[in-house]
Protein backbone atom coordinates (compact mmCIF):
# COMPACT_ATOMS: atom_id res chain seq x y z
CA UNK A 1 0.00 0.00 0.00
CA UNK A 2 0.99 3.59 -0.42
CA UNK A 3 0.36 6.66 1.60
CA UNK A 4 -0.51 9.65 -0.56
CA UNK A 5 0.52 12.64 1.49
CA UNK A 6 -0.63 15.95 0.06
CA UNK A 7 0.20 19.40 1.35
CA UNK A 8 -2.46 21.77 0.06
CA UNK A 9 -3.97 25.19 0.63
CA UNK A 10 -6.56 25.12 3.42
CA UNK A 11 -9.26 26.52 1.19
CA UNK A 12 -8.86 23.67 -1.24
CA UNK A 13 -9.71 21.00 1.29
CA UNK A 14 -13.37 20.85 0.39
CA UNK A 15 -12.59 20.31 -3.27
CA UNK A 16 -10.04 17.64 -2.51
CA UNK A 17 -12.50 15.83 -0.32
CA UNK A 18 -15.05 15.97 -3.09
CA UNK A 19 -12.75 14.52 -5.70
CA UNK A 20 -11.62 11.72 -3.40
CA UNK A 21 -15.19 10.91 -2.71
CA UNK A 22 -15.82 10.72 -6.47
CA UNK A 23 -13.03 8.16 -6.66
CA UNK A 24 -14.82 6.15 -3.99
CA UNK A 25 -12.27 7.00 -1.34
CA UNK A 26 -13.75 7.87 1.99
CA UNK A 27 -10.89 7.34 4.38
CA UNK A 28 -8.44 10.14 4.97
CA UNK A 29 -6.68 11.98 7.72
CA UNK A 30 -6.27 15.73 7.79
CA UNK A 31 -3.74 17.74 9.79
CA UNK A 32 -3.19 21.46 10.12
CA UNK A 33 0.40 22.29 9.34
CA UNK A 34 2.48 25.28 8.34
CA UNK A 35 4.77 25.22 5.38
CA UNK A 36 7.65 27.05 3.80
CA UNK A 37 8.72 26.85 0.20
CA UNK A 38 8.82 29.09 -2.78
CA UNK A 39 5.76 30.91 -1.65
CA UNK A 40 6.84 34.16 -0.12
CA UNK A 41 5.94 34.89 3.46
CA UNK A 42 4.50 38.20 4.47
CA UNK A 43 5.18 41.00 6.86
CA UNK A 44 2.97 42.24 9.66
CA UNK A 45 3.31 45.23 11.92
CA UNK A 46 2.20 45.14 15.49
CA UNK A 47 2.62 48.53 17.09
CA UNK A 48 5.29 49.30 14.60
CA UNK A 49 7.35 46.19 15.22
CA UNK A 50 7.83 44.20 12.05
CA UNK A 51 7.27 40.45 12.05
CA UNK A 52 8.00 38.33 9.02
CA UNK A 53 5.79 35.31 8.77
CA UNK A 54 7.49 32.60 6.76
CA UNK A 55 5.45 29.60 7.71
CA UNK A 56 2.18 29.65 5.92
CA UNK A 57 -0.91 27.74 6.89
CA UNK A 58 -1.33 24.55 4.91
CA UNK A 59 -3.33 21.37 5.30
CA UNK A 60 -1.84 17.92 5.10
CA UNK A 61 -4.12 15.23 3.68
CA UNK A 62 -3.05 11.65 4.13
CA UNK A 63 -4.75 8.82 2.27
CA UNK A 64 -3.50 5.28 2.34
CA UNK A 65 -4.49 3.41 -0.82
CA UNK A 66 -3.62 0.32 -2.77
CA UNK A 67 -0.36 0.75 -4.66
CA UNK A 68 -2.07 0.64 -8.01
CA UNK A 69 -4.45 3.44 -7.07
CA UNK A 70 -1.78 5.74 -5.71
CA UNK A 71 -0.88 7.51 -8.89
CA UNK A 72 -4.48 8.20 -9.86
CA UNK A 73 -5.32 9.45 -6.44
CA UNK A 74 -2.32 11.76 -6.42
CA UNK A 75 -3.25 13.18 -9.77
CA UNK A 76 -6.83 13.68 -8.77
CA UNK A 77 -5.78 15.54 -5.67
CA UNK A 78 -3.37 17.62 -7.68
CA UNK A 79 -6.07 18.61 -10.15
CA UNK A 80 -8.52 19.64 -7.49
CA UNK A 81 -5.98 21.50 -5.36
CA UNK A 82 -4.41 23.47 -8.17
CA UNK A 83 -4.74 27.23 -8.49
CA UNK A 84 -1.65 27.72 -10.61
CA UNK A 85 -0.14 30.16 -8.15
CA UNK A 86 2.99 29.52 -6.18
CA UNK A 87 2.14 27.77 -2.94
CA UNK A 88 -0.21 25.12 -4.26
CA UNK A 89 1.79 22.48 -2.44
CA UNK A 90 3.25 19.01 -2.96
CA UNK A 91 2.18 15.43 -2.97
CA UNK A 92 4.45 12.66 -1.73
CA UNK A 93 3.95 8.92 -2.15
CA UNK A 94 5.26 6.92 0.75
CA UNK A 95 5.34 3.14 0.90
CA UNK A 96 3.25 1.51 3.62
CA UNK A 97 4.17 -1.96 4.74
CA UNK A 98 0.99 -3.01 6.42
CA UNK A 99 -2.38 -1.65 7.42
CA UNK A 100 -4.62 -2.75 10.25
CA UNK A 101 -8.19 -1.82 11.08
CA UNK A 102 -8.39 -1.37 14.82
CA UNK A 103 -12.07 -2.18 15.15
CA UNK A 104 -11.86 -5.61 13.52
CA UNK A 105 -8.19 -6.43 13.53
CA UNK A 106 -8.36 -6.93 9.75
CA UNK A 107 -5.07 -6.49 7.98
CA UNK A 108 -3.91 -5.67 4.49
CA UNK A 109 -5.85 -3.90 1.82
CA UNK A 110 -9.12 -4.89 3.34
CA UNK A 111 -8.26 -2.67 6.28
CA UNK A 112 -8.42 0.42 4.14
CA UNK A 113 -11.31 -0.58 1.93
Amino acid at each position, binding site marked *: MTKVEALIRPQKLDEVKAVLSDLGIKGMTVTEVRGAG*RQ*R*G*FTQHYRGAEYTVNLIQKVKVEVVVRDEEARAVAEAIARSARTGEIGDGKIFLIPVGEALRIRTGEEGEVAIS
Partner: protein
Amino acid sequence: MDRTSHSTPAFRRGALVAVFTTVLLGAAGAALAQGGEAAPRIDTGDTAWLLMSTAMVLLMTPGLALFYAGMVRSRNVLSMLMQSFVAMGVATVIWVVVGYSLAFSPGSPFVGGLSWVGLSGVGMEPNADYGATVPHQAFMLFQMMFAIITPALISGAIAERMKFGAYVLFIAVWSVAVYAPLAHMVWGVGGFLRELGALDFAGGTVVHISSGVSALVLALIVGKRRTDASEDLRPHNLPLTLIGTGMLWFGWFGFNGGSAIASNGLAASAFMVTHIAASAAALAWVLIEWCVYKKPTALGFATGAVAGLVAITPASGFVGPVAALAIGGGVSVISFCAIRAKSRLGYDDTLDVFAVHGCGGAWGALATGLFATTAINSVGANGLFAGGGMALLAKQAIGVVVAAGYAGVVTAIIAYALKASTGLRVPGDAEVAGLDLAEHGEAGYAGATAGVELGQAPQPAAAVHASAPAGAA
Protein backbone atom coordinates in the same frame (compact mmCIF):
# COMPACT_ATOMS: atom_id res chain seq x y z
CA MET B 1 -42.58 57.73 59.55
CA ASP B 2 -45.44 55.90 61.16
CA ARG B 3 -45.08 52.88 59.01
CA THR B 4 -41.43 52.77 59.62
CA SER B 5 -41.68 53.22 63.33
CA HIS B 6 -44.11 50.46 63.91
CA SER B 7 -41.84 48.04 62.12
CA THR B 8 -38.85 49.02 64.16
CA PRO B 9 -38.81 45.91 66.39
CA ALA B 10 -38.50 43.64 63.41
CA PHE B 11 -35.95 46.01 62.03
CA ARG B 12 -33.50 45.76 64.80
CA ARG B 13 -33.11 42.14 64.10
CA GLY B 14 -33.28 42.08 60.36
CA ALA B 15 -29.99 42.46 58.70
CA LEU B 16 -30.40 43.54 55.18
CA VAL B 17 -33.26 45.88 55.66
CA ALA B 18 -31.92 47.10 58.90
CA VAL B 19 -30.34 49.98 57.19
CA PHE B 20 -33.46 51.83 56.37
CA THR B 21 -33.70 53.55 59.66
CA THR B 22 -30.29 54.93 59.01
CA VAL B 23 -31.40 56.01 55.62
CA LEU B 24 -34.52 57.68 56.80
CA LEU B 25 -32.78 59.47 59.56
CA GLY B 26 -29.72 60.17 57.50
CA ALA B 27 -29.67 61.02 53.87
CA ALA B 28 -33.37 61.40 53.49
CA GLY B 29 -33.52 63.35 56.65
CA ALA B 30 -33.57 66.72 55.01
CA ALA B 31 -36.67 65.97 53.07
CA LEU B 32 -38.48 64.47 56.00
CA ALA B 33 -37.43 67.26 58.26
CA GLN B 34 -39.10 69.71 56.01
CA GLY B 35 -42.54 68.25 56.05
CA GLY B 36 -42.56 65.22 58.26
CA GLU B 37 -44.69 63.34 55.73
CA ALA B 38 -45.22 59.73 56.66
CA ALA B 39 -45.23 58.49 53.07
CA PRO B 40 -42.00 56.96 51.81
CA ARG B 41 -40.53 58.96 48.97
CA ILE B 42 -38.11 57.91 46.28
CA ASP B 43 -34.59 59.22 46.72
CA THR B 44 -32.92 59.51 43.33
CA GLY B 45 -29.46 58.81 44.68
CA ASP B 46 -30.50 55.70 46.55
CA THR B 47 -32.41 54.53 43.51
CA ALA B 48 -29.48 55.17 41.20
CA TRP B 49 -27.20 53.11 43.40
CA LEU B 50 -29.73 50.31 43.74
CA LEU B 51 -30.42 50.11 40.01
CA MET B 52 -26.72 50.15 39.33
CA SER B 53 -26.11 47.48 41.92
CA THR B 54 -28.82 45.40 40.33
CA ALA B 55 -27.15 45.63 36.95
CA MET B 56 -23.84 44.71 38.53
CA VAL B 57 -25.28 41.65 40.22
CA LEU B 58 -26.85 40.57 36.94
CA LEU B 59 -23.40 40.77 35.37
CA MET B 60 -22.11 38.35 37.97
CA THR B 61 -23.96 35.49 36.33
CA PRO B 62 -22.13 35.78 33.00
CA GLY B 63 -19.05 36.32 35.13
CA LEU B 64 -19.71 33.08 36.96
CA ALA B 65 -20.33 31.36 33.64
CA LEU B 66 -16.88 32.36 32.44
CA PHE B 67 -15.26 31.63 35.78
CA TYR B 68 -16.58 28.10 35.59
CA ALA B 69 -16.27 27.59 31.85
CA GLY B 70 -12.56 28.24 31.80
CA MET B 71 -12.00 25.41 34.24
CA VAL B 72 -13.64 22.59 32.31
CA ARG B 73 -12.46 20.82 29.20
CA SER B 74 -13.03 22.60 25.92
CA ARG B 75 -15.60 20.06 24.88
CA ASN B 76 -17.84 21.18 27.74
CA VAL B 77 -17.31 24.89 27.59
CA LEU B 78 -20.71 25.77 26.17
CA SER B 79 -22.47 23.37 28.47
CA MET B 80 -20.90 25.10 31.43
CA LEU B 81 -21.76 28.55 30.10
CA MET B 82 -25.31 27.48 29.42
CA GLN B 83 -25.83 26.18 32.92
CA SER B 84 -25.26 29.68 34.20
CA PHE B 85 -26.94 31.62 31.42
CA VAL B 86 -30.05 29.52 31.48
CA ALA B 87 -30.57 30.52 35.08
CA MET B 88 -30.99 34.06 33.80
CA GLY B 89 -34.02 32.78 31.96
CA VAL B 90 -35.47 30.18 34.31
CA ALA B 91 -34.97 31.90 37.65
CA THR B 92 -36.25 35.19 36.27
CA VAL B 93 -39.52 33.78 35.09
CA ILE B 94 -40.00 31.88 38.31
CA TRP B 95 -39.20 34.93 40.39
CA VAL B 96 -41.75 37.00 38.50
CA VAL B 97 -44.43 34.39 38.67
CA VAL B 98 -44.10 33.18 42.22
CA GLY B 99 -40.63 33.41 43.69
CA TYR B 100 -40.64 36.98 44.87
CA SER B 101 -43.97 36.53 46.53
CA LEU B 102 -42.85 33.40 48.34
CA ALA B 103 -39.69 35.12 49.46
CA PHE B 104 -40.81 38.57 50.47
CA SER B 105 -44.56 38.96 50.65
CA PRO B 106 -46.13 38.75 54.09
CA GLY B 107 -46.54 35.15 55.14
CA SER B 108 -45.52 32.63 57.75
CA PRO B 109 -42.14 32.57 59.50
CA PHE B 110 -40.99 30.03 56.95
CA VAL B 111 -42.31 31.16 53.63
CA GLY B 112 -43.97 34.22 52.17
CA GLY B 113 -47.53 34.37 50.95
CA LEU B 114 -49.03 34.58 47.52
CA SER B 115 -50.10 38.19 47.58
CA TRP B 116 -47.37 39.32 45.20
CA VAL B 117 -47.75 36.49 42.71
CA GLY B 118 -47.10 37.72 39.19
CA LEU B 119 -45.66 40.87 40.75
CA SER B 120 -49.13 42.17 41.44
CA GLY B 121 -48.83 44.91 43.99
CA VAL B 122 -45.16 45.39 43.27
CA GLY B 123 -45.16 48.88 41.88
CA MET B 124 -43.06 51.93 41.33
CA GLU B 125 -43.69 53.28 44.81
CA PRO B 126 -41.41 52.27 47.65
CA ASN B 127 -42.33 49.52 50.02
CA ALA B 128 -41.27 50.79 53.40
CA ASP B 129 -40.59 47.33 54.75
CA TYR B 130 -37.81 46.73 52.29
CA GLY B 131 -36.66 50.09 51.04
CA ALA B 132 -38.41 53.27 51.93
CA THR B 133 -36.54 55.40 49.42
CA VAL B 134 -36.45 53.22 46.33
CA PRO B 135 -39.12 51.88 43.97
CA HIS B 136 -40.46 48.57 45.16
CA GLN B 137 -39.75 47.16 41.72
CA ALA B 138 -36.11 48.12 42.09
CA PHE B 139 -35.89 46.17 45.34
CA MET B 140 -37.64 43.22 43.69
CA LEU B 141 -35.21 43.35 40.77
CA PHE B 142 -32.19 43.55 43.01
CA GLN B 143 -33.35 40.46 44.86
CA MET B 144 -34.10 38.75 41.56
CA MET B 145 -30.47 38.91 40.57
CA PHE B 146 -29.58 37.01 43.74
CA ALA B 147 -32.20 34.43 42.88
CA ILE B 148 -30.56 33.98 39.47
CA ILE B 149 -26.97 33.50 40.50
CA THR B 150 -27.65 31.21 43.44
CA PRO B 151 -28.87 28.18 41.48
CA ALA B 152 -26.24 28.88 38.82
CA LEU B 153 -23.55 28.48 41.49
CA ILE B 154 -24.60 24.88 41.96
CA SER B 155 -23.75 23.98 38.37
CA GLY B 156 -20.04 23.92 39.12
CA ALA B 157 -20.49 20.79 41.18
CA ILE B 158 -22.02 18.68 38.43
CA ALA B 159 -20.03 19.99 35.51
CA GLU B 160 -19.35 17.81 32.48
CA ARG B 161 -21.93 15.13 33.14
CA MET B 162 -25.44 16.28 34.03
CA LYS B 163 -28.28 16.22 31.55
CA PHE B 164 -29.25 19.71 30.53
CA GLY B 165 -32.96 18.99 30.78
CA ALA B 166 -32.64 17.57 34.25
CA TYR B 167 -30.51 20.52 35.29
CA VAL B 168 -33.12 22.99 34.10
CA LEU B 169 -35.83 21.18 35.99
CA PHE B 170 -33.62 20.99 39.04
CA ILE B 171 -32.94 24.69 39.26
CA ALA B 172 -36.56 25.52 38.53
CA VAL B 173 -37.81 23.43 41.42
CA TRP B 174 -34.91 24.43 43.65
CA SER B 175 -35.66 28.12 43.14
CA VAL B 176 -39.14 27.63 44.49
CA ALA B 177 -38.53 24.98 47.09
CA VAL B 178 -35.18 26.02 48.53
CA TYR B 179 -34.30 29.57 47.60
CA ALA B 180 -37.56 31.39 48.19
CA PRO B 181 -38.28 29.92 51.62
CA LEU B 182 -34.71 30.47 52.81
CA ALA B 183 -34.78 34.05 51.60
CA HIS B 184 -38.00 34.53 53.51
CA MET B 185 -36.66 33.03 56.71
CA VAL B 186 -33.59 35.24 56.64
CA TRP B 187 -34.75 38.49 55.06
CA GLY B 188 -38.54 38.48 54.87
CA VAL B 189 -40.54 40.49 57.36
CA GLY B 190 -41.50 37.99 60.01
CA GLY B 191 -38.98 35.45 58.77
CA PHE B 192 -37.92 33.00 61.41
CA LEU B 193 -34.15 33.56 61.29
CA ARG B 194 -34.61 37.28 61.00
CA GLU B 195 -36.78 37.28 64.08
CA LEU B 196 -34.22 35.15 65.84
CA GLY B 197 -31.64 37.84 65.17
CA ALA B 198 -29.31 35.95 62.88
CA LEU B 199 -27.48 38.46 60.72
CA ASP B 200 -26.91 37.98 57.01
CA PHE B 201 -26.23 41.24 55.27
CA ALA B 202 -26.05 40.09 51.68
CA GLY B 203 -26.59 36.38 51.49
CA GLY B 204 -24.05 34.21 53.26
CA THR B 205 -26.72 31.74 54.26
CA VAL B 206 -29.33 32.33 51.59
CA VAL B 207 -26.95 32.35 48.67
CA HIS B 208 -23.72 30.64 49.57
CA ILE B 209 -24.43 28.06 52.20
CA SER B 210 -27.58 27.01 50.41
CA SER B 211 -25.91 26.65 47.04
CA GLY B 212 -22.73 25.15 48.46
CA VAL B 213 -24.49 22.44 50.42
CA SER B 214 -26.91 21.74 47.60
CA ALA B 215 -23.95 21.43 45.26
CA LEU B 216 -22.35 18.83 47.46
CA VAL B 217 -25.53 16.82 47.80
CA LEU B 218 -26.26 16.98 44.09
CA ALA B 219 -22.69 16.01 43.19
CA LEU B 220 -22.94 12.98 45.44
CA ILE B 221 -26.22 11.89 43.91
CA VAL B 222 -25.16 12.52 40.32
CA GLY B 223 -21.88 10.70 40.90
CA LYS B 224 -18.36 11.16 39.64
CA ARG B 225 -17.24 11.87 36.13
CA ARG B 226 -16.01 8.82 34.27
CA THR B 227 -12.53 10.07 33.71
CA ASP B 228 -9.46 9.87 35.82
CA ALA B 229 -7.32 12.88 36.58
CA SER B 230 -5.29 12.93 33.39
CA GLU B 231 -3.68 15.94 31.88
CA ASP B 232 -6.63 16.44 29.59
CA LEU B 233 -8.75 17.35 32.58
CA ARG B 234 -6.80 20.50 33.23
CA PRO B 235 -8.68 23.80 32.89
CA HIS B 236 -8.86 24.48 29.18
CA ASN B 237 -8.83 28.27 29.20
CA LEU B 238 -7.80 30.05 32.37
CA PRO B 239 -7.96 33.51 30.82
CA LEU B 240 -11.71 32.96 30.63
CA THR B 241 -11.70 32.14 34.32
CA LEU B 242 -9.86 35.35 35.06
CA ILE B 243 -12.23 37.44 32.98
CA GLY B 244 -14.98 35.88 35.04
CA THR B 245 -13.14 36.66 38.24
CA GLY B 246 -12.90 40.31 37.27
CA MET B 247 -16.59 40.46 36.51
CA LEU B 248 -17.50 38.72 39.75
CA TRP B 249 -15.33 41.01 41.82
CA PHE B 250 -16.86 44.08 40.14
CA GLY B 251 -20.39 42.76 40.50
CA TRP B 252 -19.91 41.86 44.12
CA PHE B 253 -19.67 45.54 44.99
CA GLY B 254 -23.29 45.73 43.91
CA PHE B 255 -24.10 42.50 45.70
CA ASN B 256 -22.83 43.68 49.07
CA GLY B 257 -22.75 47.45 48.67
CA GLY B 258 -26.20 47.44 47.13
CA SER B 259 -27.57 45.44 50.03
CA ALA B 260 -27.57 48.67 52.00
CA ILE B 261 -30.53 49.55 49.73
CA ALA B 262 -29.26 53.10 49.99
CA SER B 263 -26.40 55.22 48.81
CA ASN B 264 -24.90 56.05 52.16
CA GLY B 265 -22.05 55.43 54.55
CA LEU B 266 -23.10 51.88 55.15
CA ALA B 267 -23.01 51.16 51.42
CA ALA B 268 -19.49 52.56 51.28
CA SER B 269 -18.46 50.53 54.29
CA ALA B 270 -19.86 47.33 52.85
CA PHE B 271 -18.16 48.06 49.54
CA MET B 272 -14.90 48.67 51.36
CA VAL B 273 -14.84 45.51 53.42
CA THR B 274 -15.90 43.50 50.39
CA HIS B 275 -12.89 44.67 48.49
CA ILE B 276 -10.51 44.22 51.37
CA ALA B 277 -11.66 40.70 52.13
CA ALA B 278 -11.34 39.68 48.50
CA SER B 279 -7.82 41.05 48.33
CA ALA B 280 -6.77 39.44 51.57
CA ALA B 281 -8.19 36.09 50.58
CA ALA B 282 -6.63 36.13 47.14
CA LEU B 283 -3.25 36.96 48.60
CA ALA B 284 -3.62 34.36 51.30
CA TRP B 285 -4.50 31.65 48.80
CA VAL B 286 -1.52 32.47 46.65
CA LEU B 287 0.76 32.45 49.70
CA ILE B 288 -0.54 29.08 50.79
CA GLU B 289 0.18 27.68 47.34
CA TRP B 290 3.59 29.27 47.39
CA CYS B 291 4.36 27.42 50.58
CA VAL B 292 2.78 24.11 49.66
CA TYR B 293 3.55 23.76 45.95
CA LYS B 294 6.24 26.41 45.49
CA LYS B 295 4.09 27.96 42.75
CA PRO B 296 1.56 30.74 43.24
CA THR B 297 -1.08 30.19 40.59
CA ALA B 298 -3.46 32.46 38.75
CA LEU B 299 -6.25 29.98 39.38
CA GLY B 300 -5.38 30.12 43.05
CA PHE B 301 -5.64 33.89 43.06
CA ALA B 302 -9.00 33.70 41.37
CA THR B 303 -10.25 31.03 43.71
CA GLY B 304 -9.08 32.92 46.76
CA ALA B 305 -10.69 36.13 45.58
CA VAL B 306 -14.04 34.45 45.11
CA ALA B 307 -13.73 32.70 48.46
CA GLY B 308 -13.02 36.04 50.11
CA LEU B 309 -16.02 37.62 48.44
CA VAL B 310 -18.17 34.74 49.62
CA ALA B 311 -16.97 34.95 53.19
CA ILE B 312 -17.46 38.67 53.58
CA THR B 313 -20.96 38.57 52.14
CA PRO B 314 -22.93 37.94 55.34
CA ALA B 315 -20.64 40.20 57.35
CA SER B 316 -20.26 43.06 54.93
CA GLY B 317 -22.70 45.42 56.61
CA PHE B 318 -21.49 44.77 60.15
CA VAL B 319 -17.70 44.69 60.23
CA GLY B 320 -14.76 47.00 59.65
CA PRO B 321 -11.57 46.73 57.63
CA VAL B 322 -9.48 44.80 60.11
CA ALA B 323 -12.16 42.17 60.47
CA ALA B 324 -12.32 42.04 56.68
CA LEU B 325 -8.64 41.18 56.52
CA ALA B 326 -9.18 38.41 59.04
CA ILE B 327 -12.26 37.05 57.34
CA GLY B 328 -10.54 37.08 53.98
CA GLY B 329 -7.35 35.49 55.21
CA GLY B 330 -9.29 32.89 57.17
CA VAL B 331 -11.50 31.73 54.34
CA SER B 332 -8.56 30.84 52.16
CA VAL B 333 -7.15 28.54 54.79
CA ILE B 334 -10.54 26.92 55.26
CA SER B 335 -11.46 26.52 51.61
CA PHE B 336 -7.99 25.38 50.65
CA CYS B 337 -8.19 22.63 53.26
CA ALA B 338 -11.69 21.73 52.16
CA ILE B 339 -10.49 21.24 48.61
CA ARG B 340 -7.70 19.00 49.77
CA ALA B 341 -10.16 17.05 51.86
CA LYS B 342 -12.20 16.51 48.71
CA SER B 343 -9.27 14.83 47.02
CA ARG B 344 -9.03 12.44 49.95
CA LEU B 345 -12.74 11.81 50.30
CA GLY B 346 -13.06 11.24 46.61
CA TYR B 347 -16.37 12.87 45.76
CA ASP B 348 -16.52 14.86 42.55
CA ASP B 349 -17.68 18.36 43.39
CA THR B 350 -16.03 19.30 40.17
CA LEU B 351 -15.40 23.00 40.60
CA ASP B 352 -15.36 23.00 44.40
CA VAL B 353 -18.64 24.73 45.03
CA PHE B 354 -18.94 23.22 48.48
CA ALA B 355 -15.42 24.13 49.49
CA VAL B 356 -15.68 27.70 48.29
CA HIS B 357 -19.33 28.62 48.76
CA GLY B 358 -20.47 26.13 51.36
CA CYS B 359 -17.48 26.31 53.67
CA GLY B 360 -16.71 29.92 52.80
CA GLY B 361 -20.29 30.96 53.46
CA ALA B 362 -20.40 29.12 56.74
CA TRP B 363 -17.16 30.72 57.85
CA GLY B 364 -18.51 34.12 56.89
CA ALA B 365 -21.73 33.60 58.78
CA LEU B 366 -19.88 32.48 61.89
CA ALA B 367 -17.29 35.21 61.51
CA THR B 368 -20.13 37.69 61.57
CA GLY B 369 -20.83 36.34 65.03
CA LEU B 370 -17.23 37.07 65.93
CA PHE B 371 -16.58 40.44 64.34
CA ALA B 372 -19.92 42.23 64.00
CA THR B 373 -20.10 45.52 65.77
CA THR B 374 -22.80 48.08 66.23
CA ALA B 375 -20.16 50.71 65.67
CA ILE B 376 -20.55 49.94 61.99
CA ASN B 377 -24.24 49.25 61.91
CA SER B 378 -26.34 50.32 64.83
CA VAL B 379 -29.16 47.97 63.92
CA GLY B 380 -26.81 44.99 63.82
CA ALA B 381 -25.39 43.43 66.94
CA ASN B 382 -22.09 42.98 68.70
CA GLY B 383 -20.20 39.77 68.05
CA LEU B 384 -17.84 37.97 70.36
CA PHE B 385 -14.84 40.20 69.70
CA ALA B 386 -16.95 43.34 69.99
CA GLY B 387 -17.97 42.40 73.47
CA GLY B 388 -21.31 40.89 72.56
CA GLY B 389 -20.55 37.51 74.02
CA MET B 390 -21.64 34.24 72.49
CA ALA B 391 -25.23 35.28 71.79
CA LEU B 392 -24.78 36.40 68.23
CA LEU B 393 -22.40 33.57 67.45
CA ALA B 394 -24.99 31.07 68.59
CA LYS B 395 -27.66 32.66 66.45
CA GLN B 396 -25.33 32.64 63.49
CA ALA B 397 -24.61 28.97 64.07
CA ILE B 398 -28.33 28.27 64.08
CA GLY B 399 -28.59 30.11 60.80
CA VAL B 400 -25.84 28.02 59.28
CA VAL B 401 -27.35 24.76 60.44
CA VAL B 402 -30.84 25.63 59.32
CA ALA B 403 -29.73 26.79 55.90
CA ALA B 404 -27.42 23.84 55.36
CA GLY B 405 -29.91 21.31 56.64
CA TYR B 406 -32.87 22.68 54.76
CA ALA B 407 -31.02 23.10 51.47
CA GLY B 408 -29.37 19.71 51.75
CA VAL B 409 -32.52 17.76 52.49
CA VAL B 410 -34.69 19.43 49.88
CA THR B 411 -31.96 19.13 47.27
CA ALA B 412 -31.70 15.43 47.95
CA ILE B 413 -35.44 15.02 47.51
CA ILE B 414 -35.47 16.91 44.21
CA ALA B 415 -32.40 15.10 42.94
CA TYR B 416 -33.70 11.64 43.72
CA ALA B 417 -37.05 12.48 42.17
CA LEU B 418 -35.33 13.57 38.97
CA LYS B 419 -33.04 10.56 39.01
CA ALA B 420 -36.06 8.31 39.14
CA SER B 421 -37.90 10.18 36.42
CA THR B 422 -35.80 11.94 33.81
CA GLY B 423 -32.43 10.64 34.93
CA LEU B 424 -29.63 12.94 35.97
CA ARG B 425 -26.68 11.95 33.83
CA VAL B 426 -25.92 11.88 30.16
CA PRO B 427 -24.96 8.47 28.75
CA GLY B 428 -21.32 7.50 28.89
CA ASP B 429 -20.54 8.16 25.27
CA ALA B 430 -22.09 11.61 25.49
CA GLU B 431 -19.80 12.33 28.40
CA VAL B 432 -16.85 11.20 26.29
CA ALA B 433 -17.94 13.26 23.30
CA GLY B 434 -18.52 16.25 25.53
CA LEU B 435 -21.77 17.87 26.50
CA ASP B 436 -21.40 20.67 23.96
CA LEU B 437 -21.86 18.23 21.16
CA ALA B 438 -24.06 15.71 22.87
CA GLU B 439 -26.46 18.01 24.69
CA HIS B 440 -26.30 21.23 22.73
CA GLY B 441 -25.23 20.13 19.26
CA GLU B 442 -22.55 22.78 19.15
CA ALA B 443 -18.82 23.22 19.37
CA GLY B 444 -17.31 25.94 21.51
CA TYR B 445 -14.38 26.43 19.20
CA ALA B 446 -15.07 25.20 15.72
CA GLY B 447 -12.78 25.42 12.77
CA ALA B 448 -9.15 26.23 12.92
CA THR B 449 -8.75 28.79 15.66
CA ALA B 450 -5.25 29.72 14.78
CA GLY B 451 -5.04 29.82 11.07
CA VAL B 452 -4.95 32.32 8.31
CA GLU B 453 -3.47 31.78 4.92
CA LEU B 454 -2.00 34.38 2.69
CA GLY B 455 -3.91 35.16 -0.43
CA GLN B 456 -1.94 36.08 -3.48
CA ALA B 457 -3.48 39.48 -3.89
CA PRO B 458 -1.48 41.43 -1.38
CA GLN B 459 1.65 40.50 -3.30
CA PRO B 460 2.08 42.30 -6.58
CA ALA B 461 2.48 39.66 -9.26
CA ALA B 462 5.96 40.80 -10.25
CA ALA B 463 7.25 40.42 -6.74
CA VAL B 464 5.91 36.91 -6.64
CA HIS B 465 7.75 35.82 -9.69
CA ALA B 466 10.91 37.50 -8.60
CA SER B 467 10.81 35.26 -5.58
CA ALA B 468 10.71 32.08 -7.68
CA PRO B 469 14.19 32.20 -9.11
CA ALA B 470 15.38 30.14 -12.03
CA GLY B 471 12.08 28.60 -12.97
CA ALA B 472 10.56 25.37 -11.89
CA ALA B 473 12.25 22.87 -14.15
